[in-house]
């Protein structure tokens, strides 16, 4: 009977997982270690700027622990979506850490790198051919939109990872991948059915989030011809049929259908049952083949920001904050037009009132008591950093002293910082929610091999 065991040490490389999890995974003789190191969930900045949410030190510490575990087990270590965004630069950033560790630990292995950043010329050609398609709620696409992105990555499926493993790679570092493809690659290679491999991978992709203790670290998937079992890799952690089934909802638009390159995973008919008090078995996972496609992620600069904050505690001001805000913005717009000669085409101002409705944005619910204090934040987004910075400097005195009426004492609000303003640099926007229909994934992903040590 075909079977295989995959260890997913943690939901994302750089997040904490305990040593006992490593010991347990080694004792279980897992067939591969697989996890992602990225996501779009922290917003467009990381892809737009080609940077990581986590510091190098955090990644290197855990990469070393996993490389040591791999060395002991003698099985593949697969990490993709390297450096949060999966750009070529961040894949190289991760590669360099891996090579440093290899030298420091005297490890020998075959390393595969899978690059998944996209050439704009290639994408424009595919767009002209009608082979780039919008997904639901996608923004408009054009050659100009493609050109305006600072980075575009293709989100790989299992194919380039399986290619790398068939070429003898011991460690696979990838650009952007679907979280599930990283985990499903080895089971699919070993002949486990697609429905079971992908469904198991989805359950495991956030590590122990599918258990009753989301912060415990990782999970081990045991896959076979009829289904899969999942347990946490910390021996005390517990998976229940409920905690596992509920994970299908997590960060998914549909709780039952999971779109992956070339396949839709169908979990509506799956059954979840307890094997013992900490392990769950899942059977009945299905799949449907789809035309092969690869999703794009692209981000580009949306402007430059400067922010300023001021706190207020006066109840009369808090009660009349809408009037105060309108007055404030009126003065700022007038000053910006007359002194800086800028128009509303050049900038926008967004106001957040923390403590009042800084998150909800819709005022206080009827009858709700006034908050004791409110922190007002002005966010200026402009075409250049200099512009944004000048607009806020010009606004400084108004933000600090704007009275509610002009017959009263001039108030002074609480600035928490000196300087009062903070330049935030470029801000980015996600610009693509589209798929490409390539002849082969090889058009979009390139495998490179290094014999290390």
């Amino acid at each position: 009977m075909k079977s295989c065991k995959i260890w997913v040490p943690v939901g994302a490389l750089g997040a904490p997982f305990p040593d006992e999890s490593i010991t347990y995974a080694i004792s279980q003789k897992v067939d591969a270690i697989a996890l992602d190191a990225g996501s779009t969930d922290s917003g467009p900045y990381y892809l737009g700027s080609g940077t990581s949410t986590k510091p190098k030190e955090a990644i290197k510490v855990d990469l070393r622990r996993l490389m040591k575990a791999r060395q002991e087990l003698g099985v593949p270590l697969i990490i993709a979506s390297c450096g949060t965004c999966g750009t070529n630069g961040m894949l190289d950033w991760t590669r360099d850490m891996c090579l440093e560790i290899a030298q420091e630990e005297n490890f020998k292995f075959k390393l595969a790198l899978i690059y998944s950043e996209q050439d704009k010329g290639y994408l424009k050609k595919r767009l002209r051919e009608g082979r780039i398609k919008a997904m639901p709620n996608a923004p408009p696409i054009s050659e100009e939109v493609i050109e305006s992105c600072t980075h575009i990555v293709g989100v790989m499926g299992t194919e380039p990872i399986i290619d790398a493993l068939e070429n003898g790679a011991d460690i696979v570092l990838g650009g952007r991948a679907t979280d599930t493809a990283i985990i499903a690659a080895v089971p699919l290679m070993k002949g486990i059915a697609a429905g079971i491999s992908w469904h198991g991978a989805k359950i495991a992709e956030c590590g122990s989030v599918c258990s009753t203790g989301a912060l415990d670290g990782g999970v081990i998937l045991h896959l076979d011809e009829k289904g899969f079992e999942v347990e946490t890799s910390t021996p005390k952690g517990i998976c229940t049929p409920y905690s596992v089934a509920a994970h299908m909802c997590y960060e998914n638009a549909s709780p039952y259908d999971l779109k992956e390159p070339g396949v839709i995973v169908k979990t509506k008919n799956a059954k979840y049952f307890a094997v013992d008090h900490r392990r769950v078995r899942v059977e009945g996972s299905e799949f449907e083949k789809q035309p092969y496609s690869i999703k794009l992620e692209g981000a580009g600069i949306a402007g430059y920001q400067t922010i300023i904050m001021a706190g207020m505690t006066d109840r009369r001001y808090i009660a009349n904050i809408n009037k105060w805000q309108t007055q404030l913005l009126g003065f700022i717009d007038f000053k910006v037009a007359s002194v800086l000669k800028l128009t509303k085409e050049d900038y926008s101002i967004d106001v957040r009132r923390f403590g009042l409705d800084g998150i909800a944005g819709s005022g206080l619910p009827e009858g709700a008591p006034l908050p004791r204090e409110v922190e007002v934040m002005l966010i200026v987004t402009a075409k250049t950093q200099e512009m944004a910075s000048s607009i806020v400097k010009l606004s400084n005195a108004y933000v600090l002293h704007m009275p509610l009426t002009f017959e009263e004492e001039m108030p002074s609000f609480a600035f928490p910082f000196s300087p009062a303003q903070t330049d935030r640099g470029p801000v980015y926007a996600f610009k693509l929610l589209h798929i490409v229909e390539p002849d082969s994934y090889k058009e979009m992903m390139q495998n490179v091999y290094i014999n290390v040590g």
Partner: protein
Amino acid sequence: MKKVTLSQYAKYVRSKNAGPFWLTFEIFLKNKEDYDKLVAMNVVTQELISKLYNTPADQVQIFLCDNIDTIKISIPRPVIQGSPQDKDIHGGQQSVFLANAEIEI
């Protein structure tokens, strides 16, 4: 009959991004009985979500997850994640409007 909020009635009301362009919610009920009751009341509708989140009703997807006593809702993100107007990058606090919606039991 008395009025309660969905957060009082349910075990947990959650929201999160489903990618940068979609927002997804779950109403996890305490047990099968509460779940069946809420489904039968037919109050969690496209119209309710449309009103709460200012999004077209026909774009609201509602899933009844019998196996986990959960109602799941997905909508196009009212503001694309991380754009200058976005107040909640991970979408984790957007559940508040749904959680505060009142039902009669």
